[in-house]
């Protein structure tokens, strides 16, 4: 029993360490409510479009999903009428995500105005944030309701590259939001503790049953 359990445990722990140690750019927040948007929002040359969105603390990059364009495409974050951060992208040669570096934001800005301006000479197509590819009918959120208008999908990314280990406290903080009143950042750690206890209980039971065979 021990040999089999040890082999499986080694495999599980090895994969766990590899996965959690992988580094990459992590999401700070997004207004996306779909995986892939079915709506293309057109921004004409010289046009500026603003939307209300929470801008998270620690955001260093904003990611938009656009068709090919010759920019520049400019993003400005405005709070109480004053710009607090901005960035611009020159062009994109293919459809896909466009990452625009922002001046660092230290604190969360709830209900900020995120303004996107096309400073180029041709229209730019941008992905929306809440209409799925298959249309509104696949989202029960909109059953019986008129489909709200999409905003431009804007993902805010954290600065630099991070492993899951280093992101864990941030994840724990998010874990406690929009949940039961007694939930908090501690809850995620409590869940891992409970998972550990179930493992211990399972292994002890296995050992007991194996020895009584």
């Amino acid at each position, binding site marked *: 029993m021990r*040999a*089999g359990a040890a082999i499986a445990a080694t495999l599980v722990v090895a994969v*766990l360490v590899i996965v959690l140690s992988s580094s990459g750019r992590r999401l700070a927040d997004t207004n996306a409510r779909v995986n892939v948007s079915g709506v293309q929002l057109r921004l004409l040359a010289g046009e500026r479009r603003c939307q209300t969105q929470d801008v998270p603390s620690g955001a260093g990059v904003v990611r938009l999903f656009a068709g090919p364009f010759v920019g520049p495409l400019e993003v400005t974050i405005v709070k109480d009428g004053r710009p607090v951060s901005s960035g611009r992208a020159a062009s994109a040669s293919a459809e896909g995500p466009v990452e625009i570096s922002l001046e660092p934001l230290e604190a969360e800005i*709830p209900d900020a105005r995120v303004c996107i301006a096309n400073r180029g000479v041709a229209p730019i197509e941008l992905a929306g944030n809440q209409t799925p590819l298959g249309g509104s009918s*696949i989202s029960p959120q909109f059953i019986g309701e008129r489909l709200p208008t999409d905003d431009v999908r804007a993902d805010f990314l954290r600065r630099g590259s991070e492993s899951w280990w280093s992101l864990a406290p941030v994840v724990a903080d998010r874990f406690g939001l929009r949940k039961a009143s007694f939930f908090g950042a501690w809850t995620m750690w409590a869940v891992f503790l409970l998972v550990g*206890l179930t493992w211990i209980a399972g292994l002890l039971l296995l050992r007991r049953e194996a020895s009584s*065979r």
Partner: protein
Amino acid sequence: MSEARSRLAAVPRAALVCGAIAVVNGVCWAAVTPIFWVPDEVSHVGYAQHIAETGRLPSDPGDGVTERPGPSEEQNFLRKGLPFSVEGRPSWSRAQDKQFKSDLEKGGFDRSRLGEGIAAGVHPPLYYLAEAVPYRLAQERTLLDRVMAMRLLSTLLAGVTVLFTFLFLRELLPRSPWAWTVGGLVTAFQPMLGFLAGGVTNDNLSFAASAALFYGIARAFHRGLGFAEGAIIGGAVATGMLTKASTIGLLPGVAFALAALLWRTPTAARRRALLAAGVAVVAAGLPWLAWVTYSRLTVGAGPAPAAGLVSDSVNGDLGDLREQVTYIWQAFLPRLPFMADQFPYYPPWEVYFKGFIGRFGWFEYGFPDAWYRVAAAVLVPIVALAGLAVARARRSLKGRWSEVLSYALMAGSLAIAIEFVAYRYHEVVNQSAFFEQGRYLFPLLPLYAALVALAVKGAGRRWGPAVGGFLVVLAMGHSLFSQLITISRFYA
């Protein structure tokens, strides 16, 4: 009372531990998964809320259920505040969270409207009546707290499912206690069971009822059909039928099992067995008949299709019989050359296998594709070892063919019943969508546990313990990675 206590004491401690692990695992899932991101949880909560707030079933006259479906005021506030969408995630704004919870606490919302509960109105009421209890206990709290209380009841039902699964294995393989424990633990850590246990969905009671049913039938084959066995079988069928009408898919196997049990009972004991079978039929049929009668009487005041297998919207033109047969065939078996292609993918793999290994949320996210292939690679030796165990026991199996056939019939007829409904949904309701989900086959979880237990037996006395230890720890890892994927899906 003392008899009940002594019966409880007769339950092996290992079974209780396996059940307790399933409960705790479900609690973890209840904490991990954001509210409403379990399939149809919005509707299931709406149904139970309506019962708890008004004391009436949705099919009662005067509820206005014929109105356009729309969220109740409280649900609407919650859904917009999360904000909920199938592919989205709850807001990560700490500042907004404070305001949101404060507004939710102020209350004053209308809670009585059925709202999204109408979508769950096709289901019989037993699960929702049970869920009304934790709801009422937390009635003064916010809806977030009330849903959490309701989720906790679901986790207890997962414990019951695993407990009965363990007991089923004990009857099925009476000389292999080690295999019971391995099968019980592997089931307790099954991530889709845990994920659903962490949500408000009638699947949870349906799984518990079917596990009890498998136990009752195995016990009757092992110990003979007595009153206790009849009561367990009948009670489990009644519970299942009053929870989810798809339970009907198990009934051909149950009917065959009862007939086979009577047939093999010695003449001297046949009268007692007949009475026991009568107990099973009455215990199963009376509550169901009462519900059907009640449901029929209330038709006219609003849609009350709960007595049916599917909602009225699915009852339409049955279409071409040949098409139906080829649809059901292709749901589980490779397409034959003369058949029209019914699916844009291969359902046994995309729906049932991936749905078993893990397709979470609204069947919307899961493991990277390579992980499913690894899971399939792990499954191959498990099936081979189980086959070896069956081959070794072929002599004793000759005397148990009717029992094996009963389980096969239960599995086969449930699968056909699901696809029967799925075909109608696809043809009549939405031709661009497919109804099938892996969880619909989860009433057959005891058979999965049996497969694992047989694999441990097949590995023999020397390797059995190592294989058991390997499979249990692998199941633990499978569960943990499923939770991590869910955490990364919603919070990272």
